[in-house]
């Protein structure tokens, strides 16, 4: 089975007639059927709809009509996006009795309108509450770089399927790091756009104050292409790298890193000739507030169902949501006040000191699945609770963050976050392009045992 790997190659193959959209779709479905058992990234194949859409693309070409930009590009979605005719599970069985979605989520529709072909829904932590993609209903997703390692979560199926080379594009959602953490552990590119920039209607909610949706891709160009189709805007001109003030985040973001991660970050900063280090204030409280707001809003969202069918939830999800539902209103309101204060501090930093900030997205390589721990402050602690150490504080101000796969010559992929002021995704793409060009970021497809 062979098929072009990238969005650019696939759309060009279809446009030129080198391959039909049907052939690409059939090959992709075969790959997923035969090889996904090695990583468990897929929850449902959508073969019938995908082949019908592929035939429509091929008919357009046969009729000599112009093809949309993503013609024939297969993609998958985290199992919380509405797909017309299917029940949106959000990684749970709790919603199984709800009616099938009447229409695709707007971002899914935009990609389909752009010619991309939806072939599968992808695994996730139940209701997106986790960093592991260990799902008691749909199984555990493995990291394709080393299947004994965690893929990260909650959009782990999306990151893993792209990292494995099964799909060139997948959608996820990010509340506290659910795009950035799995992208980094699996060695792919991910984008958490500015809060509110992409429509999140039709994506099953978790925390209304923090949820965003975004893409994963195996290379930066594909990530940017997908983002602009999802955004419904032409690609904005990217600023010159020499015009950008780039700074490294110190303090909180410079502690608890493994030596490999420290060295990889140093290489990235050297490649960009970064001289300035800046600090954000009260980062520990910012992380606490992301945690508290998520718990309270998630708990509130699920409370009516928890009263009726608590036993249907994964016990770990249930207990987190119940604790969140019990948080006092005072705590939630204080956290929202802090959110406003922190946002003002961050905006001031962008006005006065920097255009793009660099921070790690994880402190280490993907933890082992049989020992899901990380080291924080000299102690071995739960990876599930601490993998978001660097992503959670940056969720709070709603900034756009690009997760870049940081090459680790000593082992498995690491990750960095490029952070910009709201709406400045183009600056992130400019800096990321430089990192990709300099060879410090970006991985190719791994050799899975089954391939």
């Amino acid at each position, binding site marked *: 089975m062979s098929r072009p790997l990238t969005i650019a190659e696939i759309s060009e193959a279809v446009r030129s007639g080198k391959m039909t959209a049907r052939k690409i779709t059939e090959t992709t479905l075969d790959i997923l059927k035969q090889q996904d058992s090695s990583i468990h990234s897929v929850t449902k194949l959508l073969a019938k709809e995908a082949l019908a859409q592929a035939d429509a693309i091929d008919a357009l070409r046969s009729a000599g009509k112009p093809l949309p930009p993503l013609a024939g590009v297969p993609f998958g979605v985290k199992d919380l996006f509405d797909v017309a005719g299917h029940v949106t599970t959000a990684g749970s069985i709790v919603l199984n009795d709800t009616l099938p979605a009447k229409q695709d989520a707007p971002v899914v529709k935009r990609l389909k309108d752009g010619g991309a072909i939806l072939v599968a829904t992808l695994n996730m932590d139940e209701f997106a509450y986790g960093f592991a993609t260990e799902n008691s209903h749909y199984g555990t997703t493995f990291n394709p770089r080393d299947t004994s390692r965690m893929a990260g979560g909650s959009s782990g199926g999306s990151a893993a399927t792209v990292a494995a080379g099964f799909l060139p594009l997948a959608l996820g959602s990010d509340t506290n790091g659910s795009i950035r953490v799995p992208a980094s552990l699996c060695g792919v590119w991910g984008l958490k756009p500015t*809060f509110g920039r992409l429509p999140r209607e039709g994506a099953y909610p978790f925390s209304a104050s923090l949820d965003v949706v975004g893409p994963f891709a195996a290379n930066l160009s594909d990530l940017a292409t997908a983002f602009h189709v999802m955004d419904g805007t032409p690609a904005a001109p990217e600023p010159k790298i020499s015009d950008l003030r780039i700074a490294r985040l110190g303090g909180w973001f410079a502690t608890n890193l493994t030596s490999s991660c420290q060295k990889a970050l140093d290489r990235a900063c050297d490649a960009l000739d970064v001289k300035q280090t800046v600090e954000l204030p009260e980062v520990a409280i910012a992380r606490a507030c992301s*945690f*508290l707001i998520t718990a309270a809003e998630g708990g509130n969202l699920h409370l009516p169902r928890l009263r009726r069918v608590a036993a249907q939830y994964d*016990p*770990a999800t249930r207990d987190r949501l*119940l604790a969140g*539902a*019990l948080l006092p209103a005072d*705590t939630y309101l204080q956290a*929202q006040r802090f959110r406003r204060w922190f946002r003002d501090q961050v905006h001031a930093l962008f006005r006065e000191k920097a255009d793009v900030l660099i921070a790690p997205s994880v402190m280490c390589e993907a933890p082992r699945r049989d020992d899901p721990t990380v080291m924080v402050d000299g102690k071995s602690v739960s990876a599930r609770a601490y993998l978001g150490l660097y992503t959670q504080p940056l969720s709070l101000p709603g900034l756009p963050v690009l997760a870049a796969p940081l090459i680790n010559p000593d082992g498995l992929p690491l990750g960095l976050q490029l952070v910009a002021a709201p709406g400045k995704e183009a600056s992130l793409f400019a800096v990321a392009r430089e990192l990709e060009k300099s060879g410090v970021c970006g991985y190719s497809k791994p050799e899975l045992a089954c391939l």
Partner: protein
Amino acid sequence: MTDSREENSLLVRARAKALDIDLSPDCLPGVLNNTALLTDFTRLLQQHHFVDTCEPAGEYEP
């Protein structure tokens, strides 16, 4: 806030009752553990001084 596990258990069960949640014995230990984590985060947040004019983010624009 109290540090005693037993008192925390009473507090959690009282809050649950006020919200009409039936906390089964199966879930009580997990809820208590998660509540302890959230309590730690709340204590951290309480160290921050707010001016009275700092409003909750509410209609939030990044």
